[in-house]
């Protein structure tokens, strides 16, 4: 694929988007896993929401 004399600017742009969006998605997935693990730990210790509903991800 020949992107001409300005190929470096094109590739740098797409790399910036890939890294930024990829990082954002990774952070959101990591954060979600942390919150679910924290809820599971609380449930294991017997801590429940008022009303006794489970606190897991199927809330």
């Amino acid at each position, binding site marked *: 694929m020949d992107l*001409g004399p300005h190929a470096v*600017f094109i590739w740098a*742009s797409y790399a910036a988007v890939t890294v930024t969006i990829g990082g954002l998605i990774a952070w959101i997935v990591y954060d979600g896993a942390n919150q679910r693990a924290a809820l599971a730990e*609380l449930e294991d210790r017997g801590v429940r929401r008022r009303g006794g509903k489970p606190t897991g991800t*199927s*809330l």
Partner: protein
Amino acid sequence: MQSWTQRLANPTRFMQVSGTLLPWVAAAAAALIAYGLYLVFFVAPPDYQQGETVKIMYIHVPSAWLALMTYGLIAISSFGLLVFRHPLADVSAKAAAPIGAAFTLLALITGSLWGKPMWGTYWVWDARLTSVLILFFLYLGLMALRSSLDDEGTAAKLTAVLALVGTAILPIIKFSVEWWNTLHQPSTNFTSTVDPSMRWPLLIMAVGFTLLFIAMHLAAMRNEVLRRRVKALRLQEAASRDGLPAHASAAE
């Protein structure tokens, strides 16, 4: 009788609906962006003036669009928090801020990388570029203000006020290319001035990016709901351990 927005305002209901929607929205975003990238790199022709550098536009324009749209969403959420005390409004505003900041940063970076070969410079202090840079700082300000305050309720209200004040930047960004003599080109009329061979890849990428934003926003909102539940349960646990009502522990 509750409206659909009132029903969705219930965090438990939101978790159910968003859990069902999220995989479909994410899959649609991935499919559209993949198809869009195929069109960009293998079908769309080079521009008669920009050459292949026009390919940067297929990611710059959607990023810039989402930079503005996300701030609009934060403003609506802030209004919902301050006026209607919508339970999910602050969750929405908080979850959207880092995503909006990321797209604004991408609009600035890709714009600079396009500007160097086309204008001969990475940056000029013209009205459009400068106002988008201010929008980026506004996003950072919203996140910094929220994280600087310990009380979540106060942080939510002050951040909402700042977000609403900051909406003044949106028309300045939008109309800067008409109000001032800028290096940045005026807004493009996609229905008449862009050839269909370039218009369709751009529209597909724009819709794909928008769906990607919706998927990330839903996921980040779900994380925030879970974070607040974890916090509430920890307070509840601490209160029951100390023999105090939960609100007494929360106030300590």
